[in-house]
């Protein structure tokens, strides 16, 4: 999942980016509203965290302009004052949830996970596909009730595929949504991660949850249950 963080305070911006990257997200950061608008328009963003008090282009205007440009990714707003008027205006402008500063990082991660899940069309926090279940709250994947050990990247990769079940997802799409700009974008890495996931999810090679379509990409084959 590729996230955009728009926050003018450098320390807070870096903390947010670090914490989100540690949780396995690809993160772009913008220092003001105009830069935020540029990233939101030009990059395949899955979710944006936007501070309301931004220089150059206020947060509310940024949200409105993104929505006017048909960008429908979920938006979480950060507000300093926590006035209901600000929250209502933020959500009316097109945001989906709000957090009042200062917040706990765990709370932010939980809200981000919930927003991404809801945007993918899942009403419940736990996604179940046959024997595989993925808990978006604890970021825990289990097979037949047994918890699996996944790295943050492996988790995000599986989550992305499960958020698009039955769809063909190209390697390029996966790279765009899971990798930082500055990281190694060798498509072989994706193949390596897919291989590891298959081993962990389907040790007996009986379930075959991830199908490879040569030259086109991957498809999560199980149906939600």
């Amino acid at each position: 999942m590729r996230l955009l963080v728009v926050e003018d305070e450098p320390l807070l911006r870096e903390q947010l980016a670090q914490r989100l990257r540690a949780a396995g997200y690809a993160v772009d950061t913008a220092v003001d509203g105009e830069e935020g608008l540029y990233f939101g328009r030009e990059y395949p963003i899955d979710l944006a965290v936007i501070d309301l008090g931004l220089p150059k282009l206020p947060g509310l205007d940024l949200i409105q302009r993104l929505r006017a440009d048909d960008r429908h990714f979920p938006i979480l707003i950060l507000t300093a004052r926590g006035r209901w008027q600000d929250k209502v205006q933020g959500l009316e402008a097109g945001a989906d949830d709000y957090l009042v500063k200062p917040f706990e990082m765990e709370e932010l991660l939980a809200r981000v996970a919930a927003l991404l899940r809801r945007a993918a069309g899942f009403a419940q926090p736990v996604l179940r596909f046959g024997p595989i279940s993925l808990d978006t709250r604890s970021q825990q994947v289990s097979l037949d009730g047994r918890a699996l050990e996944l790295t943050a990247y492996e988790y995000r990769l599986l989550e992305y595929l499960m958020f698009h079940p039955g769809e063909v997802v190209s390697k390029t799409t996966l790279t765009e949504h899971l990798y930082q700009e500055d990281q190694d974008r060798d498509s072989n890495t994706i193949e390596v991660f897919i291989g590891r996931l298959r081993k962990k999810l389907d040790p007996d090679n009986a379930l075959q949850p991830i199908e490879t379509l040569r030259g086109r990409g991957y498809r999560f084959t199980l149906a939600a249950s």
Partner: protein
Amino acid sequence: MQPTDGTGDAPQPREVVSLNRRLLLMAGLVLLAFLGMTGAILDHAFRQSLEQAQKDRLQGTLYTILAAADLSARGLRLPDTLPESRLGTPGAGLYALILDKNGETWRSPSLLGVPWAPTEQLAPGDTEFGRSVVGGLPLYALAYGLSWEDARGNESTFTVHVAEDAATYQAQLSAFRRSLWGWLGAAAAVLLAAQLLVLRWSLLPLRRVAADLKAIEEGRAELLEGRYPAEIAGLTHGLNTLLKSERRRARRYQETLANLAHSLKTPLAVLRGALDRMPSVPPEALEQISRIDAAVDYQLKRAAASAPETLAAPLTVRPVLERLLRTFAKAYSDKPLRTDVRCAGEPVFYGSEGDLMELLGNLLDNAHKWGRQHVRVTLATLPAGPAGRRGLALHVEDDGPGVKPEQAQAVLRRGGRADEQVPGHGIGLAVVAELVHAFRGRLAIERSELGGARFRIELPGG
């Protein structure tokens, strides 16, 4: 014009007579006095001239009689055919009578049946004019004394009395009075009507100021926009300046609060983020951050809770509630609660949208946090106060665990100490209590029939 009363709970001031009524009353009184005096003077003058005319007429009759009279041995005699025919006709209203030193010597035939018998003797050359009543008949009478020398040189003295029925005089006077007062009345009516028009026209700018102020109160205008005459331009200009500076001040205040919040909260967020990354954090550190955060939050919201505004348009509560409910539906989409709204009539709130949103938002947030399946909001209108502003009743209830009495007490005990806030209820309810107090309202926490807590707010009318 209504008496205005800023404080609301002060005793009702004595009714002040409106400018319109004052001017009309005084103009009416002056007009009546002036026209009344004019009428009285004209009446008096006309009566005098009528009496003079009456006297002249009687004098003329008297000379006619003397011209026709003949002095004989039996006294002064008049021919049978009198020079003035009315003297010869009984009841014709003109009478004459001649006295010599022995008494009556001649009386006109018109005096037949009239009990008029003056006996007064006047010295030659004297005249007397007056009004008398004879047998219920008002008369004007003229007496004249004279001496007559006969051919032999004997001088005798006579007194001639002539009188005329006052009916003519009376009729003329009545006719004059009728037309006099008729015309004066008509003039008064026209003048009063003109006065009324002048008044309406002169007071028009004041009425326009009142209408413009109402427009500001109802939020249809920002300033007094009309052009006003010089006499009140100073006032309206001053009012506009006051309105502008008040708005600027309020905006600057809100901006300052927003900036303060931003510049206090962001470092706190950074601090918390930094502590989060440390392998072991002393629990006091996190606790102190939470305390600073709560104190900043509470004091900022308290400062932002403005008192009821004097020039506030009535804000319809329902649309604001619906906006908040849509926000909650979005933010709590993982916890779909059934929210029903009971609303009688069209309740209004006299204050800023921000304050109403804080009131409703904090209560709804609390209800969404604690409610299991069901939240209910009830809105109602309370009776209006002396300034015609209706009050507002607002209930928010849920089916959650409810609020324990000692917690309720702590919520209702307002105060500046944010660190004494009730655990689990955050500062939201403290802000609600603060706002209700600022609006001189009442807040009660009860048990709802849904099973959870019911927050009952009553804001009185003004």
